[in-house]
């Protein structure tokens, strides 16, 4: 990929549920290695936009391209294989599975052994499963989760569940990571740890990150650029400084000034 081409290119994308335009005419570009924020009031369509990017919804208009490949209409698991991975606003871990197995599920597309070789326990099964296990343990060390490997995901404290979800999303080996309100429900100390974690994984995995967040401290602190969504439409984009002083954004959040 050449440095000039954007990693993600969204052209006039939108979705309509019956007569309701949830998201419309969104134009957005992300360059390789950027950390970009997506903010907006409640109900602005931020999560819906993430669902468009990941294939949960199929856009009714416009196009979405990753690295020049069109993503419109692909099944979610295919989009993940192309390199977009995400976390969820309300944590969606595999609760009854262990921490280790949660990550191993994300490695599933790497596995080369067939169902038959697993059923008949052929050598390939053992070597591949062992490779996945070792890789997952190595990986969880980065996230300080290697001391709870065999704990069920549902038994982890909230902060660790958030961290595990990010770890699992990264294990799917994405080029673009989408984080949906990663700091929701966290106290200031946990939020700070999260900011450090995001900075760390970004450097380590050479990632591009798009993040939805309500915590302005976090957004203004880590993001290089910010897009603002309101009523399903982009109303502003720019550096944190520009966004902070943009009258349209202030209006969207605080209402119109009474003169």
């Amino acid at each position, binding site marked *: 990929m050449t440095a000039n081409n954007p990693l993600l290119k969204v052209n006039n994308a939108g979705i309509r549920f019956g007569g309701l335009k949830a998201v419309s005419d969104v134009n957005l570009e992300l360059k390789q290695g950027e950390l970009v924020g997506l903010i907006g009031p409640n109900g602005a369509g931020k999560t819906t936009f993430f669902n468009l990017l990941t294939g949960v919804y199929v856009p009714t208009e416009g196009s979405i391209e990753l690295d020049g490949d069109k993503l419109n209409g692909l099944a979610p698991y295919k989009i993940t294989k192309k390199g977009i991975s995400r976390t969820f606003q309300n944590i969606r871990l595999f609760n009854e599975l262990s921490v280790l197995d949660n990550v191993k599920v994300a490695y*599933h597309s790497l596995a080369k052994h067939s*169902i038959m070789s*697993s059923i008949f326990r052929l050598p390939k099964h053992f070597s591949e499963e062992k490779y996945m296990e070792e890789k997952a343990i190595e990986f969880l060390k980065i996230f300080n989760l290697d001391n709870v490997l065999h704990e069920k995901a549902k038994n982890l404290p909230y902060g660790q569940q958030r961290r595990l979800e990010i770890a699992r999303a990264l294990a799917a080996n994405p080029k673009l990571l989408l984080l949906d309100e990663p700091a929701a429900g966290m106290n200031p100390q946990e939020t700070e740890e999260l900011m450090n974690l995001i900075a760390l994984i970004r450097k380590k995995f050479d990632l591009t990150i798009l993040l939805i967040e309500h915590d302005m401290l976090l957004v203004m602190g880590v993001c290089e650029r910010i897009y603002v969504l309101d009523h399903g439409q982009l109303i502003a984009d720019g550096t944190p400084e520009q966004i902070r002083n943009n009258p349209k954004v202030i209006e969207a959040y605080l209402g119109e000034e009474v003169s």
Partner: protein
Amino acid sequence: MNILKGAKGFWSSIVLAVVFGIVMQFLITGEIINFFYVNTLYFIGINIILAASLHLIIGITGQFSIGHAGFLAVGAYASAIITMKLELPFSLGLLAGGVAAAIAGLIIGIPTLRLKGDYLAIATLGFGEIVRIIFLNIEYVGGASGMTVTQLTTWPWLFGSILLTLLVIRNFTNSTHGRACISVRENEIAADAMGINTTYYKVIAFAIGAFFAGVAGALYAHNFFIIQPTNFGFLKSFDILIFVVLGGLGSLSGAVLSAILLTIVSTYLQSYPELRMIIYSLVLIIMMLYRPQGIMGTRELTSFFKFGKSGKGGVNDDSKQPVA
């Protein structure tokens, strides 16, 4: 290291099972246990296969299917046609029963597995009834009066089938493919987002489950001299469902255990026909009140032997967890 240890326990349990099978064979051929008990034993065996096969669909993949008797029927009739009409050997009948049911599983699974929860339940219930009514109206297989079948099911065939069923389902579950199925059960949207082809794994689990239900059908047909469409009504589906729920959704050993227990209970209650259904239902109600997670919960029998080991890093060990 862990894998090696697991393999050792695995082979010793297989050896134990085979020894048990051979001992039973001597007891049966030597007529040391009487016909009534042998018959109960066959009943139990067939129910174990049915429970294990439905466990893969409901307990592991989380697809609430209540038309399992339909696959049982397809397997029973397909194998009976092979042995009685075409006069081919029983081994072929067994295989044909499984394959026919697996194909039925694919045909019904591909369109219906896009449905979720209640909708899937109703669709599979409908499938079970359709199968029953089709066999009711085909003269070739005897229609309502049924089809007479020679008794060909023997202990070695039955035991071999049980062993194969449990092995295949266990091995499938404890692999990346099984984990993919469990992830569908746990959270389908997240599984999709992790790159799992959820529809594929739902259909695969459905087909494997249907295959073994078909094998059970073949064994069933060749054990009772006659098969009739009424044997495969939705009550039969519920019987199988109850094994899985009572054993604990997600536990293979739980499903097997409850299949054994409930078969014994209902066999002994046959001498009190007027009380049978009342007591049976009471057992279920009490069970659901006091142990809604089933006999085993999601745990397996083997986890009890590892208790001492896992106690070290168990749930209550908060001291080791860092402050998050």
